[in-house]
């Protein structure tokens, strides 16, 4: 029954803050590449048909027909600027990897400090989910380096969530209460964080899709918005990528809920009891089921389905923030008082 290793917990907090700072640097770099880079320009000229690849075990992603090597372009200042932007992009990837390593060690050190899997409260869950998001993005880059310039859109929500985790949701390292002393904690919460991290990516893609689709229908009046939209991959590819991520996450989320039910049966004497957390997991599941059906129904494809996807992510956010903080129930492990 060892307690908490205070100095290690402290080290973990320091690493966590450092990881946020490094991610922020990478995000600035990615955004710079997005703004000044060649990729968007290229796409804007010829929106090539997109192809889809399924990564090994990971969510599939869109591969736009982007040239692997820069074609021979006349030497003009724009090209010099583009290659600088590309360099910035690659340095951002390096920063992102460094951030992920620091982030991983923050979680590992916290695990050593509490002598258990460190995802038993909101701070720890948000930290793990953020890491899942970053790792998923890096895995995508491994297969499809051309998507690098979208890094800023992935890192922004991750950084926001980690900032929230480190400030409002923070709770100091504590040993597990008896209810959480189960191997189901590792299984159930890991699955939930992977599924929800991936669904967050799907929501980001869906927002980009809606922006792009809106621009395709009626170009934005504001030049700034138009510039942003023009550089995005084709609307159809974004939509398809968002769908593929949900197709990957939905079975995972289903398994996560089933594991939760098995755990609830062992801990609380029933597999399902409409505890607020369970109710919202049900709502999230049903909304994403709606999304999958909507994509197969005439008249619901495209934007209507996209809004259902965002509703689903809204429900996930509600389940994470409001249900943990405002509504009390059996899943009250937020660590906030």
């Amino acid at each position, binding site marked *: *029954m060892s307690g908490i290793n205070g100095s290690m917990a402290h080290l973990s907090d320091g690493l966590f803050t450092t990881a946020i700072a490094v991610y922020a640097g990478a995000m600035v770099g990615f955004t710079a590449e997005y703004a000044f880079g060649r990729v968007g320009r290229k796409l804007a000229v010829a929106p090539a048909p997109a*192809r889809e690849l399924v990564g090994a075990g990971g969510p599939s992603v869109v591969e736009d027909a982007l040239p692997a090597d820069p074609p021979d372009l006349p030497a003009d200042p724009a090209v010099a600027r583009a290659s600088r932007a590309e360099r910035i992009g690659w340095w951002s990837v390096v920063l992102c990897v460094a951030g992920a390593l620091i982030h991983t060690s923050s979680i590992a050190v916290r695990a050593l400090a509490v002598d258990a899997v460190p995802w038993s409260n909101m701070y720890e869950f948000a930290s793990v989910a953020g890491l899942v998001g970053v790792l998923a993005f890096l895995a995508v880059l491994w297969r499809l380096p051309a998507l690098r310039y979208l890094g800023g859109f992935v890192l922004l929500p991750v950084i926001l969530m980690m900032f929230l985790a480190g400030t409002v949701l923070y709770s100091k390292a504590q040993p597990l209460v008896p209810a959480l002393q189960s191997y189901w904690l590792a299984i159930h919460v890991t699955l939930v964080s992977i599924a929800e991290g991936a669904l967050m990516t799907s929501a980001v893609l869906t927002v980009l899709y809606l922006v792009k689709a809106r621009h395709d229908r009626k170009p934005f009046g504001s030049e700034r918005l138009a510039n942003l939209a023009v550089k995005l991959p084709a609307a159809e590819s974004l939509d398809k990528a968002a769908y593929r991520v949900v*197709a990957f996450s939905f079975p995972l989320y289903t398994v996560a809920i089933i594991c939760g039910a098995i755990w609830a049966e062992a*801990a*609380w004497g029933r597999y399902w009891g409409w505890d*607020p957390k369970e109710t919202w997991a049900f*709502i999230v599941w049903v909304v994403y089921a709606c999304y999958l059906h909507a994509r197969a*129904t005439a008249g619901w494809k495209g934007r209507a389905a996209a809004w259902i996807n965002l509703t689903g992510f809204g429900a996930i956010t509600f389940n994470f923030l409001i249900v943990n903080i405002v509504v009390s129930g059996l899943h009250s492990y937020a660590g906030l008082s």
Partner: protein
Amino acid sequence: MRYLRIAWRRLTAMRTALVLLFLLAVAAVPGSLLPQRPLNPAKTASYIAEHGAWGRFLDRIGMFDVFGAPWFAAIYLLLFVSLVGCLIPRIRVHARALARKPLPAPRNLERLPESGRFETSATPGEYAATARETLGRRWRIVQRAEPSGAVTLSAEKGYSRETGNLIFHVALLAALVLIAVGRLYTYQGQRIVLQGADNGFCNTISQYDTWSPGRFAAEGKVRPAPFCIDELTKFTASYSAEGEPRTFRADVVYRTSVSAKPRTASITVNHPLRLEGDRVYLITHGFAPRLTIRMPDGSVRHDVEPFIPTDPTTFLSEGAFSQPGKDGARQDIGISGLFAPTPVDEGNGKIGSASPQVQDPALSIFVYEGDLSGSGEPHSVYSIDTSKMTRIGTADLHIGQTKRLRDGVSVTFDGWVPWASLQISHDPAQSYLLIAAVAMVVGLLGSLGIRRRRLWVRIAPAGAAEPESPTVVTVGGLARSDSGHFPTEFAGLLERLRGRATPVEPVVSADTIGAGKD
């Protein structure tokens, strides 16, 4: 009849199912935001009291028992019917599709989303055999001959997508049925067991403190398993240095039937005792103070009563003792009290607790004398009705201390024993439900992970297009459902098919050089 048919078609349409599914999600929301009677009756009652007419209105429309409300049931039953109506024809169609041969090749394969073309020196018959072998057994292949002399292959793959889809939905229906069956046959009982001998119980309704049966169990159609929990031999709670709980453990002696041999088991929070058909859970725990009470008539009583924790973090607990005197003598003694495991002075004479760990515990009591029968209004067994009693004194006692009161009454705080609240749960359907859930996941993986795709190969014999031209092979591919990475897969297949084609001998002719370009 016609309207019925239209209504049925409407109900089983995907669009309707989608709306019903969405309604289901929306309908569940109030169930998480408003207090629910089955989960927390006390909170529900106080919410209704606080909100007056609004609260009573919400109550009337079932907002405090959303998941038992008729309108919630209406949504999922409609969804259920819609699903059945949608599934039956789909199963029929899919069975037919499984039995049917792949469709003949379309006339122009090069118009398909994916296509390719190459030449070979083999005859159509020879190359058809090669191609079938190259594609392998994973494709369902049908070979046909066309009047022009060309040979076509029609190949299909990915039937398990629809199979998975149907498995998922059938398993979902099965899961809903199993949940309903479980609800009918289930029962749950709770019982507080004091540590020590002679406090055990057997699995019969009368021995539970609370009992919540499903309909069939309530009607007596379910016979509870005949096991007994004979004794809570030891309850252990351990805490970290900061006072955070670390472990709770109940060591019990039990028999699986009255005549069986007693066995021992440890029940902890995540590890219930699993018996045939029933599970025994450790739900909560608490303290039971022990008193020696000298009654007004001079008799001495020993009493121990479980106190209920009112504060889940400090385990400040409250409870009561009742000792009846002689009938009609109005000399009953009633004691209500607070038990503080680690007492602190809250000021103005009130006692509080600093921690759930026991360190020199204190018992704060109010002692009453008179008639325990009170006004006859119902009240909790952890309190006494003092309406026909007189308070004869109060005291804060530590272990071993005695308070002497009027009429020779005295109260001694002898000590305490822990108690554990055990819950017995019975749901005969839950293991089948798990099987259904696993089938749902398997179906889902097939339905979302597999793609249906079709491939056609047309092998035109040599000289068909023009004299001396070699055998020409055209390949076309089509992915039904979300195309995914089919283009990549098709490119790979095409490469393999081309690789197995015996190359055409270079012919020195101006015409063929032009035609040989693919």
